[in-house]
């Protein structure tokens, strides 16, 4: 049952998260916003299209795009969604997931660079730099999540996070949650770091990397971005709302409410903050590393 609900959530939640963010932003701007299921329509439209590829590219362009998607799918296997159990779990899957993300990023950047366009080079350089800096913070957060469970899996780590832990080492977990939230913003190219809406090459990070992806290839990139954000928000959900209910359907509902709450917060942050200057982002990220480090230290007993 949990598996079926998890599959339902994989199919619906990523789009709902993204639509919620769009709706919140529209609310702040006084607009109505795109329909809730717009991302589905967009994807269907994209997959019907033909593909145009620059003749300067090599086989890496298509291969890289597909590897990006597969890496995002592999991540979802190991992260518990509706309940505390994931589809699969093995000792060390936390490291495996973190490195799968790195693999996806590596091939996404490679596909972007394959075009030889200077815009995409610019975006790739930023993506490579900022994700490199968010890696230590991510691992510090994961260390705090693993805690003393000893089994380095998402499943067992989330099983040992209970509301109790928020009482005993609340400050530590608060810092970790803040750090995780900022990592979500960085890794998914959200507002204070990257502006997903502008179409000026000089200001973009993620969007500029997929300039030359057309039709289905662009669709694949969109899907993998959605899945990645979904995975991150699921991790965040289990850290922030570590409540368990006996009824699986209540769990399911709670999960959706929690995810959408995080999405609303992201939307509010996006609507109320301006982009940080590009040169300031590394400093910002180093602060996040320090935050995560202190948080990690406070959760140690």
């Amino acid at each position, binding site marked *: 049952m949990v598996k079926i609900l998890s599959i339902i959530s994989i199919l619906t939640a990523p789009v709902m998260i993204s639509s919620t963010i769009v709706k919140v932003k529209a609310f702040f701007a006084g607009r109505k916003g795109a329909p809730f299921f717009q991302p589905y329509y967009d994807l269907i439209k994209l997959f019907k299209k033909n593909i145009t590829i*620059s003749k300067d590219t090599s086989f890496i362009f298509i291969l890289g795009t597909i590897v990006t998607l597969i890496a995002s799918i*592999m991540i979802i296997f190991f992260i518990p969604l509706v309940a505390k159990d994931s589809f699969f779990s093995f000792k060390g899957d936390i490291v495996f997931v973190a490195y799968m993300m790195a693999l996806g990023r590596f091939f996404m950047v490679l596909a972007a660079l394959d075009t030889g366009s200077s815009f995409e080079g610019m975006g790739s350089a*930023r993506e490579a730099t900022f994700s490199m800096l968010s890696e230590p913070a991510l691992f510090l957060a994961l260390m705090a999540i693993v805690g003393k469970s000893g089994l*380095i899996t998402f499943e067992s780590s989330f099983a040992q996070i209970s509301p109790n832990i928020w009482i005993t080492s609340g400050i530590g977990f608060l810092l970790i949650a803040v750090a995780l939230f900022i990592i979500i913003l960085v890794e998914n190219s959200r507002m204070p770091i990257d502006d997903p809406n502008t179409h000026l090459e000089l200001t973009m990070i993620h969007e500029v990397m997929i300039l030359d992806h057309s039709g289905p290839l662009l669709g694949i990139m969109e899907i993998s971005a959605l899945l990645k954000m979904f995975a991150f928000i699921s991790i965040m959900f289990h850290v922030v709302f570590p409540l368990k209910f006996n009824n699986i359907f209540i769990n399911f509902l709670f999960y959706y409410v929690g995810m959408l709450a995080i999405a609303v917060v992201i939307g509010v942050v996006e609507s109320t903050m301006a982009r940080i200057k590009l040169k300031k982002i590394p400093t910002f990220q180093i602060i996040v590393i320090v935050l995560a480090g202190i948080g990690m230290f406070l959760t140690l007993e």
Partner: protein
Amino acid sequence: MTQKIKNQVILVSLFTAIFTYVFIASIFLGSNFNVHIDTFFCQATGQLDGLSKFFLIPLSIISVCAFIYSFYYFPESDHKKEWTITSIFFPLMTFSMVMIVLAKNLIMLLIFWEIMAVSAFFLLITEHKYDEVRDAAKLYIILTHFCTFLIFVTSILVYKYTGSFDFPKTGSLDPGTTVGTSIFIFTLVGFGIKAGILPLHIWLPSAHANAPSSVSAIMSGLMIKMGIYGIIRYISFFHNPPLYWGLIIFAAGITSGIIGVVLAIGQHDIKRLLAYHSIENIGIILMGLGLGLAGMSTGNDIAMVLGFAGSIFHILNHATFKSLLFLGAGVIINASGTRQMDEMGGLAKKIPFTFGTFLIASASISGLPPFNGFVSELFIYLGMFAIISKSSLLPLNFLQLMGIPALALIGGLASACFLKVNSAVFMGTNPNLQNAPQRKFQESFYLKISLAIPALMCIGLGFFPYILKSPLENVIYSLTGNYFNLFNYFPFKELSIFVGIFYIFLILGLLVFKLVYKNKIEYAPETWGCGYTKPSHKFRYTATSFAEIITGIFNFILNTHYHRKDVKGVFPKKAYFKSHVPDIFLDNIILPLFQFLDDKLSPVRKLQAGNLNLYLLYKLIAIVSLVIYGAIIIW
């Protein structure tokens, strides 16, 4: 030399390869043994325990690949001299490395160590007509002899301790004594020079960059591992190494890892960049080793087993992907006629096979999952994570608090660096390359074999690390004296399953994509570049600009020198931009120090006046004082 002889050489090396593979098979099946031969100068004792066996795996495979490759790097028709040098010293160096690993005697180890060092020197100066090659060789020969000298001192200390030139039994020496501590220090510094641990690495970048690529491959893939072998072997003489040994090695590993990869990002020369990555990987190896030692001295079995296993595994992994990268770099340099990455580009279509293998190696060295680099890093990660659950000892917590983020940062930086390399070298277009000076160099069959074998190892070890389970257990046995079943510590089965799933998905994805969109792909003229009527390849983002933000962040380590003249005014004059990253230790510390010593010691040089009478007087003084000394002794 004729084509016939060349083919014979290749046949011989292929037979050697087959022979070594049979030998490796026996390594996996056979048991340990000792040999004892009396020679005229010493008793040569050999051994084949778990550690030696493991080092023989990369030695036998990688050296054969590099040897085959070297004949295509120097086609003998126009490189007679280089051909001769390679065919004499290459096998000699490989042989001496095998003998170092087999030695069970301090003198035997020293003799073959020196043969290895000197033959590496001759291989390094193969292209001695270039100034930089000679400079690099000079620096190398000085430091390698300093290294030999320190190992000499270590050996004498061991002799003083045990009274025999044979290796002491594993775990027979006491680390608490002064002699024990000094053996540790001299071992770490002496072998550390060879291994390229960070402040001692100064010979490494220039030597790796200026040697022929096949030589760089075995230098980086195999020779610097001999330093690690020495450290591991000499430390294994002691029982219960104190905690601070592990911590020192771990800290050295972190600094080498981070500073090595940061220095690599700043480089413009592809081979120098790869050389700094060797320092980084030595750092990862040392992190594993330090973790293992720390686990050993605190009785944390999980950290010990996973640390040692990760460290040893990474030695093999680094040997495969780094030699593959250097071999690939050789092809790249020949195809583009330069070593500067900013001047390359668009090679993906010209040398597709090299591109594929180079990409596999790049992903492996960045520690990305389906390849082997990830497996050894996973070992070390698991070992560090294990400390959280097991203990609350402060020094060990330091290990994980520093170690895990550091390893993550190293991984991130390495992947950024290799994205830079791949994009600068292979991607985009570069019409200038059509006119580049080229040697007769194509992706011939044998060349492809020499690239394919390490590439297959990268894939195979990443997919099925189980194959190394018993060799790794044997190594841990020879270090600790206990057998540990690695199954209890590492998820071999699950890793293979999920990597397998990844490959299945990949193949399915590609097939579906091919089938559905086969007729829907059209290739447009070229990448859009803002609609300029005459787009130029110079619009491309260069390697330097790709790394600019990262080098900016780490400028406190890199200390980049910029030489620039900006575009100014309405009618700008010619502008230029150059940047150069010095080696902090060599250019900022060592060379100024020696300059200072040179200045201060100049009065001493007056002793060497060039006057024969004076020299005869020195001799007389020497003889008289010796006679007096002898007379005193006899009395």
